[in-house]
């Protein structure tokens, strides 16, 4: 069984937001909903040594899932391959998972009355394709694959670089790893 993960190389990301748009189009999201925002830290430093980092955010597909535990209907689920998804038929829109998610990755869809989130483009992954945001990233800043496959690019990057996970101190064990070129300046 695969263990899907994503590595985001912030040294490559230029903050073009094409992943945000590709995700929004693929998932047919309303105007006021975004699964994949790209935030910007900086510019920091003193001229001429200025630095800026763009950080694509998405569902972290945690190993210890506070959102799944919080869901009273059993609509939030974690598959064996690590993908956390929502069974929309079961969701009642109580927003317990929205509040439980430390990453703000879940959004309440007012039109449908349910909560929605990034599911690593489950429909595409099941057909052997990569998520739309990864496909649309022309800088190759997003890398998706099987962590348990030592030959996969994600496994190689994770093992060869110093990667960090956001809010790792909460113990949720995210499956999204960041390569920070400028981690010292992130704080």
């Amino acid at each position, binding site marked *: 069984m695969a263990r899907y993960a994503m590595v985001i190389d912030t040294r490559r990301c230029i903050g073009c937001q094409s992943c945000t748009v590709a995700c929004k189009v693929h998932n047919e999201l309303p105007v006021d909903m975004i699964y994949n925002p790209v935030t910007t830290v900086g510019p920091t430093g003193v001229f001429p040594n200025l630095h800026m980092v763009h950080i694509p955010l998405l569902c972290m597909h945690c190993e210890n899932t506070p959102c799944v535990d919080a*869901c009273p209907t059993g609509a939030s689920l974690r598959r064996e391959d690590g993908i956390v998804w929502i069974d929309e038929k079961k969701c009642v829109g109580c927003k317990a998972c929205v509040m439980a998610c430390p990453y703000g990755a879940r959004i309440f869809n007012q039109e449908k009355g349910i909560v929605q989130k990034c599911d690593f483009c489950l429909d595409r992954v099941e057909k052997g394709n990569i998520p739309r945001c990864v496909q649309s990233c022309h800088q190759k800043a997003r890398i998706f694959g099987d962590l348990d496959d030592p030959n996969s690019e994600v496994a190689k990057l994770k093992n060869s670089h110093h990667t960090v996970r956001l*809010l790792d101190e909460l113990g949720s064990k995210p499956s999204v790893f960041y390569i920070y070129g400028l981690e010292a300046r992130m704080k």
Partner: protein
Amino acid sequence: MSRKHDEWGWMLAADFFFAGLGGAMLAIAGIADLFLGDAQTSVLGNFAGAIFIAIGAGLLILELGRPFQAFRVFMNPKSILTFGAWNMTFAIIAGLLFASFGITILPWSGFILVRKFLAAFCVIFGLVVATYPGVLLARHKARPFWNGPGIMVLFFLSSFITGMAGHILSGYVIGESSWFIAEGYIVSSFSSLVLQDLPHLTAIMLLFQLIFWAGYIWIKRSGGTEREAEAAQRWVNGDLSASFQLGFILLGTIVPIVLLLFTTPAIHSVGACLAILGGAIMRYLVVRAGEDRTWLPGEQKYRSRLPVGDEEFLKVWK
């Protein structure tokens, strides 16, 4: 962009309030019946406990995005919301059955052993219902104002204060409707020592509440993370400070303490009303405080740039 996307609304705060009020009223009625004897709390108060929980459950359903699918919240035993939903259901049933024993024309009103069992169920389910909202909030690791066991204690305390205030008020209302009791339809609680002592006990609990809240805000302000301190600052001199200090602390805690020290039942009932109002304000403010999340790098700047107040435009756009 509407805040409805990522936070709970006022109806959930109202659910927490009514669940706490009703749960504590049932627990108090059950404890009084088990350990102090028959008719220690008014029949109206006993019924009101169950009805308040039902009102809270109704508001919880209305808060859902798909209210007609509400039955699904009973499905995941691992979720604390499911645990709360089941306990609210049991508490409503146990509370209504227990309260019915106070109506003497009902044929089962003389079955003392059954009433005692129901009183025990009221204590168990009432305590759980009064406490679970605090536990639910305390487990949110990334919500700095909620996280930690302190909020559970504050919710429990507030539930019992509003519960006691609810019984004071119900006792007063029943006292004013004594013609109904004189007809012999319901058990009289006029000579109840519990009802007589509740105002002073409530005043003492309100004093505890004042001290606990001061400590809670102080600890959070000097707390573990910067975000925790920022979240607490909103209560001291931020956007929640006026409602907290004037509405909850002054009107909902200090004024009721003074009023409940008088000896007149009418003044007690005004104090009880204010204590209940304070509980409602507190729940609303605590739920509002959940807006504060531990931000990810750059997220605060990103969110500050999202459009605000464009709901009408988006409605037309759709």
